[in-house]
């Protein structure tokens, strides 16, 4: 064994602007996937809850397919395979956003469905008896209560989405890890660079994870 490795973070700190560009890319992808994933997930979740089979069968097929294939395969499919069917190219951002959003939609749909089904049937029936339409009962009575219970599961999904954004580097989308790769190969310092990247992700996500734990405890007490 040679002498001990001497850590030197100076080259990483000198290139913070490069990492900053990556951080913006990570955030942009995260926000897009969060909004599209949770939004479309709600549609699919309500679809799975529907009685009409022409609605809930496709919704179920969608959920099962996207939950049971790896995200990276989905991203690469959108990047390499889909453009062949389309008359235009697909940018790395679009491919990554499609893959991660649809995957998250499938997972969050199950959270929404579980949340909706956890609300006592009597509530929806009472709302209907008061003259609300099914859609009104869902929006005014069931969803507000369900959302509260779903909050910890949804925050967890959000954390997963944040971690998944790193996969966009596989299609060369400019995000934090991609910029890290660039720096590591330019400065020959993978140790410091990847350590910094890991620390950045940890610092971003750890408070969120702790908040989720606290939320779980609080809801656990409130429901008890």
């Amino acid at each position, binding site marked *: 064994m040679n002498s001990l490795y001497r850590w030197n973070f100076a080259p990483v700190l000198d290139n913070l602007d490069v990492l900053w560009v990556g951080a913006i890319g990570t955030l942009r992808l995260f926000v897009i996937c969060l909004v599209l994933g949770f939004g479309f997930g709600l549609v699919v979740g309500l679809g799975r809850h529907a009685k009409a089979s022409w609605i809930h069968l496709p919704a179920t097929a969608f959920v099962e397919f996207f939950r049971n294939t790896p995200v990276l395969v989905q991203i690469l499919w959108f990047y390499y395979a889909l453009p062949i069917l389309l008359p235009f190219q697909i940018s790395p951002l679009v491919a990554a956003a499609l893959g991660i959003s649809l995957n998250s939609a499938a997972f969050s749909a199950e959270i929404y469905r579980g949340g909706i089904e956890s609300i006592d049937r009597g509530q929806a029936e009472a709302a209907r008896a008061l003259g609300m339409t099914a859609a009104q009962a869902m929006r005014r009575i069931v969803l507000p209560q369900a959302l509260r219970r779903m909050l910890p599961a949804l925050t967890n999904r959000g954390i997963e989405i944040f971690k998944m954004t*790193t996969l966009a580097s596989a299609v060369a989308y400019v995000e934090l890890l991609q910029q890290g790769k660039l720096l590591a190969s330019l400065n020959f310092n993978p140790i410091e660079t990847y*350590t910094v990247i890991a620390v950045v992700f940890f610092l971003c996500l750890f408070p969120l994870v702790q908040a989720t734990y606290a939320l779980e405890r609080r809801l656990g007490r409130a429901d008890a």
Partner: protein
Amino acid sequence: MHVWNFAPVWANADLLALGLLNTLKVTGAALAFGVPLGLVLALMRLSPRRLLAWPAGAVIEVFRTTPPLVQLFWFFFALPILIHVEMTPYVAAVLTFSIQSAAFFAEVFRGGIVSVERGQWEAARALGMAPPQVMRRVVLPQAVKRMIPAFLERAIELMKTTTLVAIVSYADLLFQTNEVAQKTFRPLEVFTVTALIYFTVIFAASQLVHGLERRLAASGEGMTR
């Protein structure tokens, strides 16, 4: 209009089969190391001694809150320089996914152990068993039964995560797919077939888990997540 042609995919079916085999190999190896390590981490984290509980908690939190791809890059590119060893993509993948899944398994174990009523623990102690005996004979057997569904679900997650090794050029199913796609100029067909292969394997596994979950629920054993 694109004319679908799956013939080039079938012609390279052996390459994809090899990839699938390698995917299963990494998954199996990571499970073999990850599960025992997860149990150790869980027991350490539950220990009243801070010297044991803190490091275990740190490992669990770090590996649960950083992206697996960053971990893989660290183990593949950074660790070899730090400790002067040759790192192959396979070793890096098994190392990363073992520790990463151990962090998740540890939480499953912990949830299961904590879910066993305190009275059981106290009763066993009152009968004269030492703490390790109580854990081994009374708590763990009950906890493990409750953990099975959460456990298998984690194993399925692990298999999906192993696709990341393709990025460091280990010849798993996804990597082989990319190779075949480049060789045949048929990315649409090859990637579609691969998506279907993953779907078939993972869907079958999840159906088994759900069946088991229902049976365990019917036998009066709740589940923990």
